[in-house]
C-alpha cells in the first residue's frame, strides 16, 4: 500500500505534465524564428554574393551586377568614428561609476545611462540631426557617427562598471600600498586587469549599433559612391538594405538579401568573438 503522503492525484499529475510540456514548447517556439530568419537570409542571400558585391559600388536600376562595397566601407567608417566618441566617454563614465560612483551623483549617472540606453535610436538620430546636420546644413558621415557614438556610451559604461567591480579590491589595495597613486592604480592595474572585459563591452556596443539604420536616415543619409570624408554623406549596409527592400525590383531585393547576409555575418562574428573572450574570463588570471 502506497504511503498517502506520496500519492499525487491524477489531476495534479496531468496539470504538472501539461505545464511542463507547455514551458518546453515555448522554449522551442522561441528558437524557430531565429532559424527561419537566418535560414532565409543565407538561402536568398548567397546567390548574389560574389567578389564584385563586396568591392563595387551600386549600378543603376536595371543594370546587372554592381555591389555594396561603398556601403560596407561606410559602415566600417561609421563604426570607427562612432568608437572615437563612444569608447573614451563610455570607459570614462564606467571608471567613474566603479571607482568614484558610490554616491548620489553616481546613482543619478547610472539611472541616466540606463535611460539613455532605452531611448529609441530614431530619437537619438533626430537629436544628432538637430545638433550637427542643421548647423552644418548638410548630411555627413560625422553626424551619423555622433548618433551611433551616443548609442555606444551607455552600453560601454554600464558593462565597464560591472567588469571593474569584478577586479578584487585586494589588487587595488596592493597597488596603493606600494605607493602608486590612485590614478595610476586605476589606469595600469585595474583597467589592465579588466581589459578583456572592457573589450567585451566595446564588442557589445558594436553589435548594438552595427545594424542600426533608423538614426542614419537623416544623418549619414546614404551615398551611391565611395566616400571617406567625414564631411560628406556616406552609405551604410543597414540603410542600403532598407532602400533596396522597399524598391519594387526583384534584382534590388536579391541584393538586399545578400547585404543582409554580409551584415549578419559581420555581427555574428563579433558576438562569437565576444563570447570567446568572455569564455576565457573577463578578468585576467581570474581562475
Amino acid at each position: 500500500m502506497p504511503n498517502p503522503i506520496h500519492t499525487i492525484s491524477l489531476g495534479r499529475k496531468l496539470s504538472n505534465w501539461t505545464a511542463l510540456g507547455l514551458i518546453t514548447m515555448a522554449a522551442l517556439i522561441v528558437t524557430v524564428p531565429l532559424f527561419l530568419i537566418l535560414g532565409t537570409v543565407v538561402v536568398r542571400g548567397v546567390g548574389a554574393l560574389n567578389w564584385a558585391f563586396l568591392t563595387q559600388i551600386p549600378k543603376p536600376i536595371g543594370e546587372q551586377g554592381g555591389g555594396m562595397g561603398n556601403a560596407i566601407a561606410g559602415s566600417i567608417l561609421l563604426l570607427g568614428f562612432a568608437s572615437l566618441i563612444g569608447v573614451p566617454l563610455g570607459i570614462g563614465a564606467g571608471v567613474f561609476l566603479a571607482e568614484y560612483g558610490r554616491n548620489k551623483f553616481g546613482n543619478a549617472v547610472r539611472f541616466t545611462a540606463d535611460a539613455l540606453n532605452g531611448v529609441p535610436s530614431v530619437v537619438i538620430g533626430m537629436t544628432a540631426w538637430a545638433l550637427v546636420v542643421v548647423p552644418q546644413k548638410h548630411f555627413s558621415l560625422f553626424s551619423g557617427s555622433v548618433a551611433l557614438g551616443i548609442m555606444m556610451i551607455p552600453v560601454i559604461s554600464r558593462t565597464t562598471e560591472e567588469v571593474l567591480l569584478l577586479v578584487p579590491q585586494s589588487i587595488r589595495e596592493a597597488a596603493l600600498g606600494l605607493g602608486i597613486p590612485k590614478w595610476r592604480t586605476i589606469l595600469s592595474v585595474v583597467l589592465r586587469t579588466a581589459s578583456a572585459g572592457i573589450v567585451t563591452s566595446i564588442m557589445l556596443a558594436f553589435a548594438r549599433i552595427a545594424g542600426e539604420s533608423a538614426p542614419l536616415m537623416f544623418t549619414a543619409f546614404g551615398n551611391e559612391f565611395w566616400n571617406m570624408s567625414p564631411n560628406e554623406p556616406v552609405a551604410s549596409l543597414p540603410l542600403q538594405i532598407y532602400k533596396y527592400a522597399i524598391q519594387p525590383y526583384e534584382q534590388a531585393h536579391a541584393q538586399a538579401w545578400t547585404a543582409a547576409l554580409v551584415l549578419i555575418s559581420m555581427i555574428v562574428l563579433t558576438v562569437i568573438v565576444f563570447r570567446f573572450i568572455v569564455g576565457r574570463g573577463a578578468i585576467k588570471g581570474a581562475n
Partner: protein
Amino acid sequence: MRTMPEHGPSREPEAPEGPDKSSPVPSDEQKLKVVPKNRLGTRENVIADQVFRGIVVLCALAVLAIVGLIFFELVNQSHLSISRFGLKFLVKKIWDPVAEDFGALPFIYGTVVSSLLGLVIAVPLSIGTALFLTEICPRRLRAVLSLLVELLAAIPSVIYGLWGIFVLAPFLRVHVQPFLARYFGWTGLFSGPKYGWGMLAAGVIIAIMILPIIASITREVITAVPRVQREAALALGATKWEMLRTAVLRNARPGIFGATILGLGRALGETMAVTMVIGNRPEIAKSLFAPGYTLASAVANEFTEAVGNLYLSALMEMALVLFVITLIVNALAGLLVWSITRGTPARGLA
C-alpha cells in the same frame, strides 16, 4: 600574461621607503632614485589624482548632458508645433501635410496597439523560455539555447523588416489571416482585406524582437528567487509545476512585470522593422488586419521628405512624445526589476 601578484613582489624591495615623504631623503644614491616615484602625497600626485578624477567625472557628466541635450533639442525643434496645436496635438486624428494640419492620435494608437500585441505574444513565450532555461533544461543544452536567444537579439531591426516583408507577410496572408478571420472574425479584430502586412504583422515582428530582452531579465529574476523557497514547496509535496507556480513565479512576479515593461519600452521605440511591415497609413481601425502607423515609423519614414517647418516640427514633437513615454516606461521597469534583484548580490559583485 602577467598577473598582479607577480607584479607586487618584484617591486617590493624598492618600496618600503615609499609613503614616508616628510623626512628628508638620505644621501644614498639608490634611494634618491627610488623614493620620489613612490611619494603618494606629493603635490604632483595630488594634482594628477584630481585631474584624473576630473576627467572621469566629465565623462559621467557627458552622460547627463546628452540626455538633457536630447530633451532640449526635441523641445526646441518642436516649438512651432507645440505653440500651434498645444495639447490638442495628442488627441487629434487628422494628419494632413498639405493643409499643414497635424494630430498624433493615429500614431499614438498604432504605437500602443502594435506594442501591446507584441507583448501579448511575447510575454508567455518569454516566461516559458526563462522557466525552461532555469528549471528544466539539461545543463549542456542551456548554454546553446541561451546563445540562440541572445543571437535573436543581435539580428538588426532592418533584417527583421526584410524578413517581415518577404516571408512573414505572405505567410500571414496565406495561412494565418484566413484562419483568424474564419474562427475569430466575429470579434471584429480580424476582418477586412488580408494584405499580410499591417498591424498584426507588426505585432508579430515586435514580439520576436522583444522576446530576448524579456526572457533574459525574467531569467535573472527567477534565478534571484531563493533556493529555500523551492525546497520548501517541494518538501510540502508540491509537484514541479506547483513548485514553480507557488514558489518561483509568485515571488518573481514584480520582476517579471518589470521585464514586461522593459520589453514594452523596446516595443514602443522599435522603428525600422515596424516601418517595413505596418503599412504606414495614419488611420485608426479596429481590425488588426488593417494597416497602421507608429510614432517611430512616421518619424523615420517622413522626416527626410518633410517640407515646411511646421511639418518638421510636428514630426519632432512626435519624437518628443516617444522620448518622454520611453523614459517613463523604462524608469518604471528599472524600479520593478531592482525591487526584486536588490536582495541578491549584483552580478558584478558576486
